[in-house]
């Protein structure tokens, strides 16, 4: 069974694609068969991060049945063990993916045979984004230490919370629950999705228990990207504390990735940052994060 790591962040420009691409490269360099999937349906650019200009096939080809299986859209990269499902040639309306197509894609991804599958997700809190993010219980949030990004992370987490409850309950049951919660507190769903669970426990303890167990199964992760010297390095730890304490969700802070102005250059040149600047602090941060996630260290991380 592959480890599936959906990577999301709510807001654009936080470096999700950079993080996904370079983490994938580090995994591949450690010998793991690693598949990167560009699930940012509306604005795919993972192929650019890993240096592929004109991918021959794309996710759309699977959805439009131009290829028989999702595996047929997988591109082998020059870096050994690294593979990519690109979104470069996606149809322009793919972001409005129909429910059936989305479910077909999710099922197909989970059946692929790789050691690690990293999904680079889009921004916002659409159902498509959230459903890709909850394909596994180990979603990774990437944000930057700015209020706009942090606000969007909280919004995304709350959206995941509500979406999960909705998926477990039947439509009319969820509607009844939502109406009762909003009657007590008009912004219950937006600001306090945990009220839904409280209310459900009162209305139906058995169902409440089921939903609670589903939410408890999440093992989210958080990365703070583009951390500058003047930024508080503890922000990630504190965000996790807020989520655990007030939403009751498990979330682990993986670490900070230092800001490096050479990232811009690497992206413009379509080069692998972790290969070109392998001894930069940002690369060392990524290696440490990877070590924390996999329990496996490469030589450079071991030397830290």
């Amino acid at each position, binding site marked *: 069974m592959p480890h599936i790591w959906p990577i999301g962040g709510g807001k654009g420009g936080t470096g999700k694609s950079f993080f996904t691409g370079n983490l994938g490269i580090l995994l591949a360099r450690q010998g793991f068969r690693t598949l990167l999937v560009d699930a940012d349906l509306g604005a795919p650019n993972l192929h650019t991060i890993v240096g592929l200009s004109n991918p021959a096939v794309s996710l759309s080809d699977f959805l439009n049945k131009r290829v028989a299986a999702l595996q047929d859209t997988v591109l082998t990269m020059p870096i050994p063990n690294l593979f990519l499902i690109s979104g470069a040639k996606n149809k322009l309306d793919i972001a409005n993916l129909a429910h059936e197509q989305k479910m077909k894609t999710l099922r197909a991804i989970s059946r692929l045979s790789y050691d690690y599958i990293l999904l680079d997700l889009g921004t916002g809190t659409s159902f498509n984004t959230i459903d890709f993010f909850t394909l596994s219980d180990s979603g990774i949030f990437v944000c930057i*230490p700015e*209020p706009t990004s*942090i*606000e969007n992370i*909280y*919004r995304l987490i709350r959206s995941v919370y509500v979406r999960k409850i909705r998926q477990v309950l039947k439509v009319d049951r969820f509607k009844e629950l939502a109406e009762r919660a909003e009657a007590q507190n008009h912004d219950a769903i937006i*600001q306090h999705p*945990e009220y839904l669970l409280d209310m459900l426990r009162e209305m139906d303890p058995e169902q409440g228990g089921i939903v609670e167990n589903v939410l408890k199964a999440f093992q989210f992760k958080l990365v703070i990207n583009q951390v500058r010297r003047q930024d*508080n*390095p*503890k*922000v990630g730890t*504190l*965000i996790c*504390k*807020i989520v655990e*304490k*007030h*939403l*009751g969700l498990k979330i682990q802070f993986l670490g900070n990735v230092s800001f490096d102005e050479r990232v811009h250059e690497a992206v413009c040149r379509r080069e692998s940052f972790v290969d070109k600047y392998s001894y930069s602090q940002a690369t060392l941060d990524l290696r440490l994060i990877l070590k924390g996630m996999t329990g496996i260290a490469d030589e450079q991380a071991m030397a830290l």
Partner: protein
Amino acid sequence: MRKLNDLNFYELLEVASDVSPFEIHHAYKELFQLYHEDSLASYSFFSGEEREEILAKLDEAYATLMDEKKRSHYDQQLIERGILEEERQYQRDRKQLSLIPSAKHSNADTALKIRDRLKMIVSSNSVIQEVLSHEALTGADLKRIRDELGVSLEEIAETVKVRMVYLHAIEEDQFEKAPSRIFLKGFLRAYAHYIGLDPDSVVTRYLKRIKN
């Protein structure tokens, strides 16, 4: 996940029931930085009202646990309710841990808000009020107030940028260690200001004992 209203003061401050006032102050400071309105980490998570409610609960917990009598009374209530074991109560004569809270990422605004909170504690703490009723103030008096607030000299030194040797000298009434009377007044003002006391009053009452 338990609601905030269901937590006792120790759980609210995330400390064990037998910790020292110093550790309570440190815990309060950490949580204050998390929940105050300028906190980046909790930005947008709470409404203004919710934030104030949480801070008010933290203040109540802090004020209770930092006052020896109030804390003892509160602990007794917890013991009677079966929540606290008698042997897990704080013993005053235990040595305080030398945790030094880092002020590196506390900005001036945060320090100001903490000072406001300390002022509130000063006004409600019976031991401190008794000390402040003295006409003159000794170094030992200032130390007693500082101990009641659970504030360390290291914390004061780090924030107000006065060397420890001078702060020690103030508390030990070793006036001759200050470079001059003007410097002594300045150090006293900074010390008093940090722990929420009226600097003018402290300077006047402390220096009353020193001959010109």
